[in-house]
């Protein structure tokens, strides 16, 4: 791994087309600005990891009794998971 030290306001250029700038540092948090051509996908790594882990969990080795599956149309997509612990009032 290439390791570089940068200060706020400094940047680096990758392959002549991607610019990563350190916009600011606030305690543990570093604000980065990324300029890249539209075909370059920039993702937070933990999201990629989550999808990867879920792919492995979802891949079935054995068939399942289809009649045991009960699907229910549910609440809006953004709400549910983050409130997993709360009980409906």
């Amino acid at each position: 791994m290439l390791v570089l030290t940068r200060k706020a306001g400094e940047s680096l250029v990758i392959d002549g087309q991607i610019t990563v700038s350190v916009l600011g540092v606030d305690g543990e948090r570093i604000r980065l600005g990324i300029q890249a051509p539209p075909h370059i996908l920039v993702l937070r790594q933990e999201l990629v990891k989550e999808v990867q882990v879920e792919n492995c969990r979802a891949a079935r080795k054995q068939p399942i009794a289809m009649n045991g599956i009960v699907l229910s149309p549910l609440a809006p997509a953004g709400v549910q998971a983050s409130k997993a612990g709360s009980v409906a009032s």
Partner: protein
Amino acid sequence: MHSSIPTVMERRSSRANRPRRVDFPEGLIGCESWRSFELRVEPEQPMISVLQCLDDPEACFLLVDPFNLIPDYRVRLTASDREFLRLGDVEEPAVFCTLTVNEDEGMITANLLGPLAINKRTGLGRQLVQSATDYSARHRVGSYVREVQDAGSDAQGG
């Protein structure tokens, strides 16, 4: 090239129930060797499709059309995704989410964070990451009810 003669069962089933070849040239995320698949509608559960990996017989996915379960679900396709999937200007892909069945907890979740987009014409697919949302990879969408007769139950002596 001649197509094979359909069997009695194939002739009886509707066209939609026939397996459809689907290719993910990049593989699935984190599982890059899983590239070639067969997709078929599960006759017992019309809301579920089965995606069987041809590269690994032990990798089989249950898929749902998320819009059937979560009416406000939105998928964001980038220009690069559209190009990769070779979609026409007004062409929309089929979108599926994988289901994870947790048999012990009797829970079924859908991966809304990493949906699968498939070109309906060509069967070309790509797994997306919906990074600009707070969609969960484990969004609960149902229950799994194990059959009452469980062969695994042990008797406690006597």
